[in-house]
């Protein structure tokens, strides 16, 4: 085998580990390096000026000048780059300019009727002429260049033309970060994002932890069903909540009008509210696990020592469950911070980091991948900060309890039972308001993006007639990316848990966990930057979406595989080896079959992630590879789009999500969320 020649090792796992390290470096680290590079680059310079006939002046649009500096000397406009004069411009008659090189030769070529390339002092400046025209516009003169001497030329152009000049030769700068932090819009976005992240996580924490504690502690009617329902809420399609809440409680929302309110959910408060309901299931599921997993004897000991029930909650139950609760809160925090769909729909003109970075990356004249990259890096940094804080706090005092005897829930009094049921019902109602709203409106008529109370199947007919491709695309993406991440995840987890190679192991672990803190939008931008140039051009393909989903799922796949592996004794495999099975065979025969059942929940989670992925999809998708979430998104936010289709497709997506989920949760409740714990 060729590989063997390069990796002179008789341990096939080592070969795999090195290959996995290479692959993940290319897919995960390299795009991030591209982002870093992009954030440190800037065009060499740009400026726009106009040669006005009236008055015969060259008017420089000061706001457009970047990189260059201009001064007026003897009626000439002198362009200056990095302290040295580069060239001078002056009027040489009607519609005519003269350019003169100040540090060596200056030559010019007309590229087409409107564009000129100026080469001077090692720089290549492209100038594009725009001539303002009204409805019944004037004819324009094409540009013409006449070289006067090796260092000067004469340019004829259209009357009153604007000349937009770009020097695309990049220069290195830290200015993008400065610009990002100095710009009020960016600063506000940062602050808004932090406010939303913290408040929505806090709200989700209060909701999730209190409900989890209640149903862990008391024997509540329909307990298991409740947990399954919350698990379902955990994998809602993205921005479903945002749009539904806007439809209900916006300025002219259904409920707003029905109740005659003068208010709107649009704004920061709305983002917080919707995000909280979006992320609370994570907190709930992990807290519930933590509460039910704690050793009952510890709580009983506290009560036997005379602690009041409330005191017991705060001194024993909560601290014991703290690692689990914190993990849930941390996951909620990261999810809230990176959520793109909700702010895109609810925040209107308020910017948050994910929308700002997205807008910077995909905007036209402001086209600023550099600034977007700076913002993206900032997001990764903040995200990493959250992770650091979480880890530091946990390592600062954890109580590892192995449950000896699980808490058996108490029978509550009728009153308590009623109150808890009412609370749970309220939470479920809020969690499922979006689902119900979309389900109902998918059967109603939509005109001009407004729902009319007329029942119809038209939305479904239109969808099935025109938009089935996206269903196939989403299913294929989710399936392939899940399979790939699980297969690689199993291998990587095996290497990390069983082989513990020095250097390779920790490095691999670090790289694999990176996507856990990188927001989806940033992963998308990184992939575009890295895969838009030869040798590998994947932008706009199915493959790049699949790669993104794969990368985003890898940490979950590895962590869930690790969790399963920890439960399988290495001796099972050694037994096979001692009986003559090669390492690969022994792994396949002894370990893999035992992992399979444990991985079902991890794989389901990955599949559901793939089906609902939006934040990287939105940057990456190109026709014809349009997943369901992109169709829903397009039909939700673009003008005159058919929201009926978005609603029908969301319902279809929910069917695809909740069918398998329901089956899985019957067997493996709780593992779903635990898998995500780092």
């Amino acid at each position, binding site marked *: 085998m060729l590989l063997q020649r390069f990796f002179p090792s008789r341990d096939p796992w080592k070969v795999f580990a090195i290959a996995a390290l290479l692959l993940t470096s290319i897919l995960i680290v390299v795009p991030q390096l591209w982002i870093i590079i992009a954030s440190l680059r800037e065009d060499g310079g740009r400026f726009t000026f106009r040669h006005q006939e009236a008055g015969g002046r060259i008017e420089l649009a000061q706001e457009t000048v970047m990189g260059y500096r201009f001064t007026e000397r003897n009626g000439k406009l002198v362009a200056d780059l990095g302290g040295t004069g580069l060239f001078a411009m002056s009027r040489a008659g009607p519609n005519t300019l003269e350019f003169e090189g100040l540090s060596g030769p200056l030559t010019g070529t007309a590229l087409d009727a409107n564009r000129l390339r100026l080469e001077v002092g090692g720089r290549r400046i492209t100038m594009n002429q725009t001539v303002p025209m009204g409805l019944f516009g004037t004819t324009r003169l094409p540009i013409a260049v006449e070289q006067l001497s090796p260092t000067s030329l004469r340019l004829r152009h259209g009357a009153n033309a604007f000349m937009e000049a770009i020097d695309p030769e990049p220069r290195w700068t830290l200015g993008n970060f400065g610009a990002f932090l100095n710009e009020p819009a960016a600063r506000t976005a940062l602050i808004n994002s932090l406010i939303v992240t913290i408040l929505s996580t806090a709200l989700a924490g209060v909701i999730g932890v209190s409900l989890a504690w209640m149903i862990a502690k008391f024997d509540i009617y329909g307990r298991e069903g409740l947990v399954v329902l919350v698990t379902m809420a955990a994998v809602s399609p993205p921005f479903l909540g945002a749009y539904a809440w806007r439809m209900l409680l916006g300025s002219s929302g259904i409920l707003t009008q029905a109740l005659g309110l003068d208010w*709107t959910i649009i704004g920061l408060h709305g983002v917080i509210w919707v995000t909280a309901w979006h992320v609370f299931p994570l907190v709930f599921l992990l807290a519930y696990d933590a509460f039910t997993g704690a050793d009952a004897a510890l709580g009983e000991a506290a009560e036997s020592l005379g602690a009041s029930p409330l005191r017991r909650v705060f001194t024993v139950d909560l601290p014991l469950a703290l690692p689990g609760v914190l993990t849930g809160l941390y996951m909620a925090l990261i999810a809230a911070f990176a959520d793109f769909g909700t702010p895109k729909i609810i925040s209107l*003109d308020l910017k948050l980091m994910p929308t700002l970075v997205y807008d910077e990356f995909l905007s*036209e004249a402001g086209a600023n991948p550099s600034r977007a990259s700076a913002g993206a890096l900032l997001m990764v940094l903040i995200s990493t900060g959250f992770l650091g804080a979480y880890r530091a706090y946990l390592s600062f005092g954890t109580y590892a309890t192995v449950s000896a005897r699980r808490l058996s829930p108490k029978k509550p009094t009728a009153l308590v039972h009623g109150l808890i049921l009412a609370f749970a019902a309220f939470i479920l109602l809020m969690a499922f308001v979006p689902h119900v709203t979309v389900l109902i409106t998918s059967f109603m008529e939509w005109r001009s993006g407004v729902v009319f109370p007329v029942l119809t199947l038209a939305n479904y007919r239109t969808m099935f007639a025109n938009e089935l491709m996206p269903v196939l695309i989403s299913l294929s993406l989710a399936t392939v990316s899940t399979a790939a991440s699980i297969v690689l995840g199993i291998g990587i987890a095996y290497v990390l848990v069983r082989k513990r190679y020095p250097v390779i192991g920790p490095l691999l672990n670090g790289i694999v966990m990176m996507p856990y803190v990188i927001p989806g939008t940033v992963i998308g931008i990184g992939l575009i930057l890295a895969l838009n140039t030869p040798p590998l051009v994947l932008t706009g393909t199915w493959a790049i979406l699949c790669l993104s989903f794969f990368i985003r799922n890898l940490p979950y796949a590895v962590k869930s595989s690790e969790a399963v592996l920890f439960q399988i004794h290495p001796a099972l495999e050694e037994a096979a080896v001692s009986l003559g099975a090669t390492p690969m065979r022994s792994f396949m025969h002894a370990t893999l079959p035992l992992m399979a059942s444990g991985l079902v929940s991890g794989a389901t989670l990955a599949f559901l992630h793939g089906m609902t992925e939006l934040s990287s999809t939105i940057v990456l998708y190109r026709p014809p590879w349009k997943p369901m979430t992109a169709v829903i998104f397009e039909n939700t936010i*673009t003008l005159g789009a*058919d929201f009926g289709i978005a609603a029908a497709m969301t319902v279809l997506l929910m069917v695809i999500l909740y069918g398998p989920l329901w089956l899985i949760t019957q067997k493996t409740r709780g593992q779903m969320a635990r898998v995500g714990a780092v």
Partner: protein
Amino acid sequence: MFRKFAAAAVLSVGLTGAAQAQSGNIVFYTSHAADTTGPVLELMKQRLPNLNVTLVRAGTGEVLQRLKAESGNPAADIMWGGSIQLFEGNADLFQPFVSTDKDSFLVSDPANIWHASNIISIVIGVNTKKVPLGETPTTTAQALDPKYTAMGGIALPDPAKSSTGYSVISALAAAQGWPFIEKIAKTARVLPSSGGAANAARDGETAMVWVNEDITAKWERDGIAIKSVYPADGVPTVVDPQAIVKGSKNLENARIVMAFLNTKEVHETMRDKVNRRSARKDVTPPPGLPDLGNLKLIFAAEPASVVNARFEALRK
């Protein structure tokens, strides 16, 4: 279905061999709304039935950004909608197409890059639930009155991201000067896309919005609480063009479709079904839209680079 999937696979890998006229694929990038493109696509299905059409819809800026990102390996064949300034400013993304019918148009590109489709006036769409009837502004200057801020204010699609926004700011700057734009920068609520802005006013999240006249006309017909105001102090007016993308993978089809889009039949369909004024001299204006002769039309002058840089500076 699967054939379509397979066709898409072939398309994206770029293995389509010599493009055969009138069959195969055509990919539009458009900033037009679905109900704007719908009728023309319907007609196209009849006239060019063998074409497999894909449409990517996004804000003008996003579309343009994608074209830039993909230059060299474009996924699109035709960019549909925007402003001529935008097309001219990015002329290197497109390739010329010589129309045989150039003289039938009110306006045409000497370089044959863009081809005019519609002439659109940008009105102020006023949500009548938010703004009491007697207080409907009649000029742009009035619409900036602080009293409207409490009602929700006026939404402006970000000039850097929407050609509507750019056209408004550029035309108003040319007509009324930059100090007037400063007032807009301090008053208006700037939203990332024209769709988002229009929807916000329709849903009453803002009181008003700068929006294309055909949209508000359609909304008024659909019974939505929106009124179109043609400001007496100047109505920004744009020419809405289309162009063939440079390096189009289905160039033959792109030429056929472009010629088709220029036909009188298409322009009449746009007028009849989506209320758009044609850029063709031989197509009468749609009923219900005011005669252009009665409006004070204003036009964009400064290019996007200048307008965006100035506007951004004013917002700080």
